[in-house]
């Protein structure tokens, strides 16, 4: 697990340091709806709740609620 964590951290560092400056007028593609970090927020709330009631790894996000999921 530690190896994966380190790899992630390394990847992150490389990405951040390697990123090229993107001027505002070069951000057209980034602005497209398909490039949104979460293109389907409502659907993902729904499926996220279902995963959360069927898998152990639901916690750990900063959001609250969700109910018992006891079914």
């Amino acid at each position, binding site marked *: 697990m530690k190896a994966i964590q380190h790899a992630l951290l390394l990847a992150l560092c490389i990405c951040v340091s390697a990123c090229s400056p993107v001027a505002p007028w070069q951000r057209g593609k980034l602005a497209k709806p398909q490039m949104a970090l979460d293109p*389907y927020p409502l659907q993902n709330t*729904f499926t996220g709740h279902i995963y959360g009631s069927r898998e152990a*790894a639901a916690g*750990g996000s*900063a959001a609250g609620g969700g109910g018992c999921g006891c079914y």
Partner: protein
Amino acid sequence: MPLAGAVVAVIKRLLARAARPKPAASASLQALTAAALLLPGLMPAPVQAAASDEEVSFLYGYYEEGKRNLFGVNSRFDPITVDSLLGSSKIKLSDRLKFAFNYTQDTWSGATPIATAPLSFGGNKESGVLSGATPYLQNNNVLFDRQLNPVRRDALTGDYVKDTQLVHTLSSASPEIRRQGDFKLSYEWDEVTLDAGGGISIENDYESRFGNVGGRWDFNQKLTSLNLGLSYTNSDTQAILDHDATPYIFDVGRGFDTYNSSSDSGQIHKENRNNVLRGNRQDWGTALGLTQVLNETALLEAGIGYTRSTGYMANPYKVVETAFINPEQTGELLSGVSIGLLEKRPNERNQWTENLRYVQYINGLDAALHFDYRFFHDDWGINAHTFQADWVQPVGLGWTVTPKVRYYSQDAADFYTPYMVSNQALSRTAVDASGRPIYVEAGNPDNGNVYFRDNHFNLIDANGAVVNEIAVNPINKTIPFDRKQLPGHYSSDHRLSGFGALSGGLTIGKQFAKGVTFEASAEYYTHAGSMQLGGSGEDAYADYDFYTVNAVLKVDLSALSFAGGDHSGHAGHGGHSHHGGHAPAGVMFDHTMDKAGGLMFGARYMRSTQAGAILQGSNKVSDHTIVQQGCNGEPCFTAPGSMNMNMVMLDLMYAPTDWLTLMLMPQFMDMDMATRTLNGAPSATFAQQSLINHHTLHEHTTSGIGDTGVYAMVKLFDEAGHRVHGTLGISAPTGDVDVKFRDTHRLDAGYQHYGMQLGSGTWDFKPSVTYTGKLDKYGWGAQINGTVRMERNNETGFAFGDIFQSTAWGSYDLLNWLSTSVRGVYTVQGSIRDQYNGTFNKLGPMDYPGSYGGRYWDVGFGINAFVPGGSLQGNSLSFEWLQPVSDDVNGYQLPRDGALSATWSYAF
């Protein structure tokens, strides 16, 4: 402000670039406009693609599990299904202040595993009372070999053979509803956004309250964003462990605390006539995220999170099947007794997550590839990995196709065990220091008095004096098993087992003009122990699958503002025919669309309540009368105490020509009812009493999709302030009419009351004629409408009565955006035709078809608001309270308390 100056400069530059002649100029202009919108101060999240500032969206979702493998036992339960409804709205309170509100409602019913045991334990028993298996995990006699392998007797040869096959025990529930409301308020500065939110989630047996604060800082020319969030959740469990749990939770009647301690003792109390398990849990969570634009076509998000949970974290309905084997036995075959113990989890859990999300634009295909990885670790011994990839592919004309694949794998929790074997007897006879068996009083075993037998088998007290055996009624004192010999924590919840899950799905989206988006999505999910990373997960008996489907409708309220002011049609509210003045919120089909191509989107909410003394006709009657006459000569035990109905309808209107408006109206409903025992009710059999308790001790609820209406509205007359239009409609039977109670005491509790079903079950014809008029500030109108059942009866054997309604109203404009209304309503509804054709337990008047329908007068008071300009132009909001004036019911029914209607609509 230098930043604002810079923004203006950049916009000018962009516009100058856009103005240059170019091939496909309009497409480039759009892209550039989109880019311009991303500039500081114009869009909130520069490193993310545009999410609308002002938006209303709805989701309906459905979840259904596949049947579990019960190894030859025929389960009488349907697998669990969940209906979900989500509504979400975002509005701008000012340029920088935003408010978001979400409402979620989940309803589930059906069967889930409540325990696991060797197949030989017979946890899913087929008994004589019910056809099909029901849970049975109490005091089962079980056999093991010396190596503690489960053993069963072969039915053919009579030999004892080792059989390690495990199987889940299933149990089902009546429909249960969870409701959640939450909000978020955020304030944006140029580079920093702060938000605060909170909410509450309510179930019958679980309530959560939560709050969160967060912030985002955009820097590095808005190429980098840093997010920080903190959340707190406080949740209470309040689970009724009733007679329905007796077949599988050990000793529900007494001694719960002795045997079933979940995370601390003293959690289970007798309240009213129920055993109630109470627990509290608190979660503190924090998350830190970094979003980085890597280049013109890629961005990356990385985050870490930590959550600390303390308190009661177990599932109050899941048990761990435990076999007790007396070690003093000799021979190769060991016999024991198995019982179900409530699971016991640690009361502390620390959870860490790390996640990475990468989004890459695919040049040439105009697509985006999303890749997510999430790692989860906790101190219960669970490590989990989630990989997900989505390919978002626009395919022209506003259509988008998104295939998705997801893989999840988790280790088992340290304390996960499918079942337990304890090397001690379940209970043993207590003896004193000299080895004499101890006796106690059967009627009061815990009063401290102990007795013995002397040499002549006389019953003697502690001082050796012979006592009256008949008065004492002695029984052997037994000592239950020693809980300290069980592990500290145990759970056989399959969610804590080791497994892998693979799922795949497809989302299809269509963006219509004017900011309306429709999405439909389906996903299939398969869970298997063998798919765990490393393949050492739970055995195949625990494998299952499910599918989900969902549909989303999204309206971008700010689309019009961005569209460049081309909404002259809306000036003066001209988009749809409200020229007759605003009809009250409770009136449906009150207007048509004016112009061909017109589009309207709306939502209606209606809540009606009934409570009070039962009426016969218009008069209150005593319990005595109901017992005597309320049930058609059959025994009458209960009557409804209250009933509430909530209905959410979506209103989608489209005018293909200027004289015709088409309308689609899906609806979602939920109902709850409380019943009470009638004074002077006749004596009941054991089975009847079980059912009566089942009804009166719990409020019952139903919820799900209701019937779906399709309507055509035709303009008949339109001149000088007077309008008449006719509506022809069909209501399709999409609502369930076969909702049942869960079993009780191994009895089939049958269908819920007629009025608790979600639809009519029949195809219904719904015509209406509406007249509206308007003069200066005064408006008026009238409508007659009907509902005619077009079938003799529905799939479960009955049909609701036809409905006829007439209404008339007047309204007055107080301001140019606000009006009030008064109206009168007269309604007639017939009684139910025929009756249920399946198992149905008639306990009170509400179970008889003659106690439905009636004649009703109501008066309505309404208020309507309309946004005449600004970014929310075209929105209207109306409320109406309908006050019953007179009830004349068929048979014996609850009086009505009133109904609230709220409608919101948005015309384009």
